């Protein structure tokens, strides 16, 4: 395939992925928006005033970046894992496997689909947050790139889950038992400086912490972690997961018998 053909194959997958989650927007876009709105109401409006300021911001302002990030992470992951597993389950993954499209394009297409949904939901949640709180953006470039890179990272993670998944249970196990705890403990709702020292150290092992803090730095200009470390960690994980995904696709794990 020449470059032009590869490009065609790539955006075919991307368009298909975007149409897929758009067709079922009531299952894909609406729920995170509602959940996040509830977080804003309960934690921001009702409980927030009792908590007081965090690093000079209201509690509501403090959690907005974390909640946007949480939505981006969950939805990027969910999109790729359900789309990839779905195409294994229905067999239509074969449409790509019989074609000459290279594996890295398949990977890029699925991941871009996950990014599209992550960004769409992220944008929707950001809009909702404007109802409750003013949005300062200190460093737009940082906010945008950290959001995009995090979305990429979790789209890759979703693909790997999709490769290994053998049942619909398998696509909800990782989100429930790994992703949700990591996100909740990743500094969405608090600053790790509030934790006892030992828990601060343990928190540093959680990759999500670096993403939430990087994003919060972009929005509010404050973070528990230097921003360059956030970039380094996220890029490192992307490189790792992307190579692993390529290995899985090249070996045909879970897709070729």
């Amino acid at each position: 395939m020449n470059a032009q053909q590869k490009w065609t194959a790539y955006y075919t997958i991307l368009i298909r992925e975007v149409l897929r989650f758009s067709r079922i927007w009531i299952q894909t876009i609406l729920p995170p928006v509602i959940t996040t709105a509830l977080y804003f109401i309960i934690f921001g409006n009702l409980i927030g005033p009792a908590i007081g300021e965090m690093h000079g911001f209201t509690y509501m302002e403090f959690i907005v970046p974390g909640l946007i990030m949480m939505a981006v992470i969950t939805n990027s992951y969910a999109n790729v894992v359900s789309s990839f597993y779905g195409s294994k389950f229905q067999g239509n993954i074969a449409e790509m496997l019989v074609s000459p499209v290279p594996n890295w394009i398949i990977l890029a297409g699925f991941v871009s689909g996950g990014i599209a949904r992550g960004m769409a939901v992220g944008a929707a949640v950001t809009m909702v947050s404007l109802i409750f709180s003013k949005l300062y953006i200190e460093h737009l470039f940082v906010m945008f790139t950290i959001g995009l890179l995090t979305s990429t990272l979790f789209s890759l993670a979703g693909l790997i889950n999709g490769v290994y998944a053998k049942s619909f249970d398998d696509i909800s196990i990782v989100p429930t038992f790994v992703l949700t705890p990591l996100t909740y403990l990743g500094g969405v709702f608090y600053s790790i400086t509030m934790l006892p020292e030992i828990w601060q150290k343990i928190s540093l092992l959680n990759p999500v912490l670096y993403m939430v803090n990087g994003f919060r730095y972009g929005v509010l200009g404050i973070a528990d972690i230097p921003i360059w470390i956030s970039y380094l960690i996220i890029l490192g994980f992307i490189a790792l997961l992307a190579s692993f995904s390529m290995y899985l696709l090249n070996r045909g794990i879970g897709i070729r018998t």
Partner: protein
Amino acid sequence: MTAALAITDLRKTYDNGFTALKGINLSVQQGDFYALLGANGAGKSTTIGIISSLVNKTSGSVRIFGYDLDTQRELAKSQIGLVPQEFNFNVFEPVGEILINQGGYYGIERAIAAERAEKLLKQLGLWEKRKEQARTLSGGMKRRLMIARALVHEPRLLILDEPTAGVDIEIRRSMWEFLTDLNESGITIILTTHYLEEAESLCRNIGIIDQGQLIENTSMKTLLSRLDTETYVFDLVEPIEQIEDKGACHFELRDPTTLEVSYHKEDFSLNQIFAFLNQKGLQVLSMRNKTNRLEQLFIDLVEGNKA
């Protein structure tokens, strides 16, 4: 001329240890219409799966129009259109999009793919359904959708794994016609089927797989000429009580008006048999071939392989 498909010593052992292919050698010439027959579980779909990159082979080599599937994978893949045995499209995708997307995976621009999709969907009687989700199609329509999908990128080799399973007689006939036209336009076709009459009327050459081995690979003509016994069933006008064999020609009375005749082709002609019946004063109302001749041969071959 390079073969459309050349398979050498192809073996497959599945992860569970089951050996589905035990060294298949097979070559299909360009322009051929080839039937791959075999009982359930013989290894047809496994062979097709390997050719179309859906199944990893254990050993052996596959060449498609001279392109090696291991070393020239992209080129090899571009030549093939696959109609798999099981429905495997996304049932929530609209019919038209399935075709356009499939074209996209081969690098075909959406506008061009859309034109080809229109032509194919019209030819296969699915144009009205182009905007419907694939799950709303009937079984026969789903089969035709898979045929259309396999042709969007204009392959030179079309492989169909039981394309007419569950398809009604009328549609089957029109599919045959469609495939014959494709073949006449130069596309090499390989087809598996359990309807031997289908293989007989469509295919020029034939291979029979049994338990992972190719036990027959010859032209349809040669195979049929090996049939030396003919069996006919005559419906008689008047009932009779009994009838004696005439030499090596064997008569059997199923009921008083149904007579079964079997004979060796070298020994007798139908005319001689009619003459004999005439002489006995028996009038034949109608006659038919007892079984599909190929069916008997197929069973003999597969039985022979077991022994």
